[in-house]
């Protein structure tokens, strides 16, 4: 079969399209969706920290290595991130956007992450719930018990040590997690 110039042109076009599609697939987008995510220099939790990543940060996947992904930030930093800490869609917002009662978009979530951070300072029973308890005649023993529950907190450092001890997630051995 003789290949005409126009046929050749279409084939080159198709090849370019295919190449672009493959590149787009390989360079997939991911979003940081877990608190305390760190960009690492290698695919290992014990490797050096490159940067701390906030929830909602957009990443471009450069290379996939099983449970670890090599990624690039918008600022051009490259490193490895544990696959469990990112998602294929942006994390949902803290408060609603324009689309209804409980929906929302990531742009809103940026603001609300800060909002929720301030909520972290909430410790113990709120004055409003205390008033509710008083009006309802809730026995003191339950109020005190809930106050203790609400005052309990886990620091990021404690959480990392806990996961490490249990060989969980990014702290797992190569062939799996803690048994």
């Amino acid at each position, binding site marked *: 079969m003789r290949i005409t110039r126009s046929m050749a042109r279409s084939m080159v076009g198709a090849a370019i399209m295919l190449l672009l599609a493959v590149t787009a697939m390989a360079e997939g987008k991911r979003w940081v969706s877990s608190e305390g995510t760190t960009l690492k220099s290698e695919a290992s939790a014990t490797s050096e920290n490159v940067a701390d990543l906030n929830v909602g940060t957009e990443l471009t996947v450069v290379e996939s290595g099983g449970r670890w992904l090599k990624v690039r930030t918008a600022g051009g930093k490259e490193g490895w991130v544990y696959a469990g800490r990112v998602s294929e869609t942006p994390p949902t917002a803290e408060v609603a956007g324009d689309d209804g009662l409980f929906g929302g978009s990531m742009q809103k979530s940026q603001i609300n992450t800060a909002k929720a951070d301030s909520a972290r300072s909430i410790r113990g029973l709120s004055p409003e719930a205390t008033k509710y308890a008083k009006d309802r005649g809730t026995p003191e023993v*339950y109020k005190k018990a809930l106050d203790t529950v609400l005052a309990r907190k886990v620091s990021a450092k404690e959480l990392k040590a806990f996961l490490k001890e249990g060989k969980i997630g990014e702290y797992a051995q190569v062939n799996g997690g803690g048994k």
Partner: protein
Amino acid sequence: MRSFIYALIALTLTAAAASAGFFDEVQKFTKPDSKESQYLSGATQLLSSSKEVDYKTERVIGESLALEGLQRFGNPVKNEPLQQYVNLVGNAVAGNSKRATIPYQFAVLDSQVQNAFAVPGGVIFVSRALVSILEDESELAAVLAHEIGHVAGKHALKSTRRAQFFQGVGTITAASVGGDKGKKFASAIGDMQAVLFDKGLDKDMEYEADLAAMESTYRTGYDPSAMIRVLQKLQRIEASSTNKKGSWFSTHPPLDERIARLQNQLQKYPDYSSLAVVRERFSKHAITGK
């Protein structure tokens, strides 16, 4: 909704501009007593009533419900290492949930009914009876992650027919929980109690929380099939149980349907069996059901 209203206003303005002077019509909207101004004010009210309950309000609702929950199911067990341990497991999976940016607290309650429940805002309770039937940390993580799924989906808030009351409240204050408003607040809390503790949430919300549990345990690094193992344990208990009141199987959809859906979902995680179950550490915190 908002874009629809804007479009409607724009359409009205365009039509008005075509039939009369455009600026004359705009002026009508700015006169407080005009019919047009009232339309606009109605539209604004409609928009503000669809505002979401803010986090502080959600938290107050949750704390009030938690006070009711403790009275019904019992106070937390007096075992600080266990309570701390449950908080570590819970926070590990919460950090990989769909709502990772709010604070979560967990407590094991001194209750002999196999149950767990979450109140809005992130306070989660699990009964000692339910913990006692679990065999490893991944199973505890699955139960807590299921409840986190309800908090993330705001399921309790969506379940009350008095949700309108909370939306109208805006940011809750001590004044909103006192006086006349207080009566409405207490009644809305009563409504949510009935859903959470007696009737149970909508079955689709339960399925959603099951799938969310599998996803966040997997993302944390726990074996996601743990959720199935927990439900299978409950299935065995359910078969031999005479009193099912208030348990996870009385307030949730049929266990076989939940298990079937999860087994289908498990195909998404081909490497699941290589993930952490952490039996030894869990057994150090083992408690009896009574």
